[in-house]
C-alpha cells in the first residue's frame, strides 16, 4: 500500500476520533461536575493520540525501509559489479531501481511469466511507456522482482502497524475522557512543541546548508589539492577532458574572487552615493507629498526581479555602451557588450533601494535633539547632515554598506547575463570578468556526472561564497545592533 493511502487512512481515523471524543465529552457533561476542558479539546486530544504516533512511525519506517531496500539491492548484485568502483555499483543499483519501478506498471499476468532476458522484456515495458537505459543487464531482472516483493512486504507491515498504532492511540485517548481530565493542557503542550519545532527549522536549514556543502567540498578536495583551489590563478575546469586522468582541470579561485569583488565594488560605487543621497533627501528635505510618490517608486526598483535587470543589461545597456564606445573611437569599441562596467552599473541600480531603505532607518534613528542642537547653533541643514547626522550615523551606515556588499557578492542573475563567462584577471572595467556565482551556475547546469571535480567544485565555490557573506552579515548585523542600542 502506498504511503499516501496509509496516511489518508490514519487521518480519517483521527478525524473520526475527534468527532467521537467531542461527542463523548459532551455526553459526560451532565452538569454535576464542572468540566476542566471544553468538549472539542477532548476531541483534539483523541485526534492527536491517534495520529501523532502513527504518522511518526510511518515516516520513520518509510525512511528505514528505503535504506533497507537499497542495501538489499546492493548485496544482491553479483560479485564482479560489487567489487568494482563505487560509481559502477551505484549505477547498477540505480538501473535495478528504475527496472523495479518499471515492472510495477506491468499487470500480474505478465509478471508471473516474466522473460529472463532484458531483450524480451524491453518491448513489453516500452508498450507501457517505460523507457529504460539500454545497459540494463539480464541478471538485474530477478533482483528487481525480488526488490519489489520485499518492498511490498515492508509496505504491508508499515500499513498494518501504523493503522494499529492509530487505533490503539485513539482508544487510549477516548478512554481518558472524563470531566476533570486536563485535555486542554495536553493539547496545548503538543501545540507548544510543534511551535518550537517550527522555529528550529531555521537552525536545521543552516545546518543543512553547511553540511550539504561541506561533504561535497571534502569530496572535491580529495581530488583536487587545496592550494590548486585557493591560490590557483587559472580557471580551466576542462569539461571535455573530464575523467581523463592526465589532463586535470585547473580550479583557481582567484580570478573568480577578483571578478566578484570588482563587480561588487563598481556596483557599490553606483549604489552607495545615490542610495545615501536619496535617503538623506527623502528624510530631510522632501515635502510629504513628494515623498509619498517618490518613495514607493524607488521601492518599485527593489521589487523587480534580478533577472529583469540582467536582461536589460544583456539586451539594451550592454550593446548601447558598446556602440557608444565604438562611436567615440570611430570603429573598434573599447567597451565589450558583456563587461564589468555593464554588470556593475545595473547591479548598482538594483542596490539603490537596499542602501536607501537601510540608511533611511539609520538616519531617522539619530535623536531629534542632536539635529535641533546643530540647527539651533546656526548650521544650515546640509551642514547639520554632513557634520552631525552622518558622523553620528556612520557605524550604522557602514553596517548597511556591508549588508549591501554581501547582496552584491551573492547576486547571480545579473552577472550570469551581463558579466560574461571568461575567467580573466584584468583591471580594465571595460572587459569581461566572471564571478563565483556565474561559475556555480555554469558548473551545475548541464548533464554531468555528479561525482566529478567539475561539478563538486561548485559546492566548494558555494561554501566560499556562504562563508564570505556570512562573515559580512554577522559583522554588519552586529554593528547595526550596537548602533541602535547606542541611541535607545
Amino acid at each position, binding site marked *: 500500500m502506498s504511503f499516501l493511502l496509509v496516511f489518508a487512512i490514519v487521518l480519517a481515523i483521527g478525524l473520526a476520533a475527534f468527532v467521537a471524543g467531542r461527542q463523548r465529552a459532551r455526553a459526560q457533561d451532565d452538569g454535576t461536575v464542572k468540566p476542566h476542558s471544553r468538549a472539542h479539546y477532548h476531541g483534539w486530544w483523541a485526534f492527536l493520540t491517534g495520529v501523532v504516533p502513527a504518522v511518526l512511525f510511518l515516516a520513520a519506517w518509510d525512511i528505514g525501509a528505503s535504506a533497507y531496500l537499497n542495501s538489499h539491492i546492493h548485496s544482491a548484485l553479483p560479485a564482479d559489479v560489487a567489487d568494482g568502483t563505487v560509481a559502477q555499483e551505484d549505477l547498477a543499483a540505480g538501473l535495478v531501481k528504475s527496472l523495479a519501478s518499471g515492472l510495477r506498471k506491468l499487470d500480474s499476468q505478465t509478471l508471473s511469466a516474466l522473460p529472463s532476458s532484458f531483450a524480451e522484456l524491453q518491448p513489453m515495458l516500452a508498450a507501457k511507456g517505460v523507457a529504460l537505459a539500454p545497459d540494463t543487464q539480464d541478471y538485474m531482472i530477478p533482483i528487481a522482482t525480488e526488490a519489489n516483493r520485499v518492498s511490498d512486504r515492508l509496505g504491508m507491515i508499515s500499513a498494518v502497524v501504523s493503522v494499529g498504532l492509530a487505533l490503539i492511540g485513539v482508544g487510549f485517548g477516548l478512554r481518558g475522557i472524563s470531566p476533570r481530565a486536563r485535555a486542554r493542557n495536553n493539547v496545548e503542550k503538543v501545540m507548544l512543541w510543534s511551535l518550537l519545532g517550527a522555529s528550529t527549522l531555521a537552525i536545521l536549514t543552516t545546518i543543512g*546548508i553547511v553540511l550539504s556543502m561541506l561533504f561535497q567540498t571534502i569530496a572535491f578536495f580529495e581530488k583536487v589539492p587545496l592550494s590548486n583551489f585557493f591560490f590557483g590563478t587559472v580557471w580551466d575546469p576542462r569539461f571535455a577532458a573530464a575523467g581523463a586522468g592526465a589532463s586535470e582541470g585547473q580550479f583557481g579561485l582567484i580570478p573568480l574572487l577578483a571578478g566578484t569583488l570588482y563587480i561588487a565594488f563598481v556596483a557599490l560605487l553606483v549604489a552607495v552615493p545615490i542610495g545615501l543621497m536619496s535617503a538623506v533627501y527623502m528624510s530631510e*528635505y522632501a515635502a510629504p507629498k513628494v515623498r509619498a510618490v517618490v518613495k514607493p517608486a524607488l521601492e518599485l526598483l527593489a521589487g523587480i526581479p534580478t*533577472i529583469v535587470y540582467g536582461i536589460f543589461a544583456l539586451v539594451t545597456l550592454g550593446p548601447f555602451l558598446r556602440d557608444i564606445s565604438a562611436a567615440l573611437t570611430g570603429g573598434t569599441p573599447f567597451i565589450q557588450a558583456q563587461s564589468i562596467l555593464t554588470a556593475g552599473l545595473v547591479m548598482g541600480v538594483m542596490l539603490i533601494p537596499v542602501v536607501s531603505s537601510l540608511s533611511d532607518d539609520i538616519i531617522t534613528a539619530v535623536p531629534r535633539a542632536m539635529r535641533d542642537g546643530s540647527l539651533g547653533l546656526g548650521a544650515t541643514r546640509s551642514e547639520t547632515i554632513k557634520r552631525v547626522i552622518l558622523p553620528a550615523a556612520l557605524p550604522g551606515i557602514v553596517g548597511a554598506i556591508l549588508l549591501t556588499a554581501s547582496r552584491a557578492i551573492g547576486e547571480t542573475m545579473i552577472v550570469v547575463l551581463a558579466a560574461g563567462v571568461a575567467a580573466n584577471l584584468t583591471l580594465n572595467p571595460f572587459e569581461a570578468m566572471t564571478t563565483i556565482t556565474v561559475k556555480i*551556475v555554469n558548473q551545475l547546469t548541464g548533464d554531468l556526472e555528479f561525482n566529478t571535480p567539475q561539478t563538486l567544485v561548485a559546492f566548494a565555490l558555494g561554501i566560499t561564497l556562504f562563508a564570505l557573506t556570512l562573515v559580512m552579515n554577522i559583522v554588519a548585523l552586529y554593528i547595526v545592533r550596537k548602533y541602535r542600542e547606542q541611541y535607545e
Partner: protein
Amino acid sequence: MTDISLDTLTTSAARPRRDIGIKKRYAAERRFRLYGVLAIAVGLAFLGVMLTSIISKGYTAFWQTTVTLAINFDEKVIDPSNKRATDPNVLITANYPKLAEAALIEKLGIDPNDKAEVRKLKGFLSDSSRVQLRAIVAADPSVIGTTRNVDILAAANMDSAFKGQIDLEVPESRRKVSDQQVEWMNKLKAEGVMAEHFNTGLFSYGASSRPETSGVGVALIGSFYMMVIVLLLALPIGVAASIYLEEFAKKSRFTDLIEVNINNLAAVPSIVFGLLGLAVFINFLGLPRSASFVGGLVLTLMTLPTIIIATRAALAAVPPSIRSAALGLGASKMQMVFQHILPLAAPGILTGTIIGLARALGETAPLLLIGMVAFVADYPKTPFDPATALPVQIYMWANEAERAFVERMSGAIIILLIFLMAMNIVAIVLRRRFERRW
C-alpha cells in the same frame, strides 16, 4: 543691561557686516539639495528607461500574425492509398503542411507547377500547421474532402516583417525575408487575409524550437504549483515559528541562536539555497529533478525568513492591553495567542506573506541549479513532473539568438511584472484597509 545691548547693536549695525561666508554656505546648501534631487532622478530615470525598453520590445509579443486560408482537406494528400480505416497512423503522419501550402498557392494565384516560385514560399507559414490541422482532422475525420477556413500562424520571420520589425532597406540577401515574400505579404494584408490577432498561444504553448509556437504555458503552471507549495508550507511554519519566538520563548542562548540564524538566512545568497536543494532534496532524498515540488521546497526555505520577520513585527505591534485583557478573562496563553493576537495580526502577516511570495515568484538562480532549465513542451500534471518557472523561461529565451525569441522574452517579462505588480498592489490594499494603529 538694556543700554549695553542697545549700544552693541548700534555699533555693529554701523560697521559693514563681517563676512562669515554666508553666501558660500548657502551655495553649498543648494548644491547639496541638488545632489539629492539628482540621486533620486537617476534612480527614477533608470527605472523609466528599463521599463520603457522592456515594454517597447515586448508589447508586440501579445499579437501574432495569422493567415486565414481556405484549407481543402484533400483526401489525395492526407490519405493517398485510402487506408485510414485500418491504419490510424495514416492520419497522424499525413503531410498536413502541404495542405496549407496548397491553399496559400491558390490564394496567391501562383502556378503550382512553377517549382522556383513555390520554393520561395518556404518559410512563409509556420510548420505548426502540421499540429493544428492534424488536431482538426483527429477531432472530426469527416472533414476530409471538404474545405474550411483556418487561421494558420505565420512563420516567425514573416511575423516580424508584418509587425514592421525587419528593416527592408537592408539588401535582400542579408535579411531573413525575401522581396517576393514581402510583396505577397502586402498583397495578403491588403486583402485582409493576413492579420494580427491577440496571441493566446503565448499563454498556452510550452517550450518550442519555433518562436511562433513557444509560450509561457508550462512555466505559468510550474510557477503556480511552486507558489501553492510555498504558501502551504511557508505560511504555517513561518507563523508557528514567529509565535513561538515572539510569545513563548524565554530569552536564552537557544532562542538567541535561532534569531541570529533567521537574520542570517534572510541575507544568504539565493543561489546557496539552490545548492542546498540540489545536495539534499535531489541527491540525498532522491526527489525528481526539474520538478516544481523541489522548486517549491527550495523557495519555501528562502521565503521563510521574510515571513518570520514580517509576522514577528505584526505580532509585536498588537498592544499588551489586549494580551492582559484576554489573560484576565481566564484565557490560557495559547487561547490568547490563537483567538486574540493572531486575528489582529493577520493583515500584517498576510502582507508580509504576499511580499515574500512575490519575491519567490521572481527568483531564478536556485531554480537553475535544481534542473528547471529544461525543455518542457507538455503541461506538468502533478508537481512531481518536469516543469519550468516563469523567470527560468525568460532566462532560457535570453539564450536564444533569434529576434522573435527576444520579443517573446520581453513579453514574458511583462507578464511576470504584471503578476508581481498585482501581488504588491494587493499587499498595499490589504495593509491600507485592515491595518490598525493603536
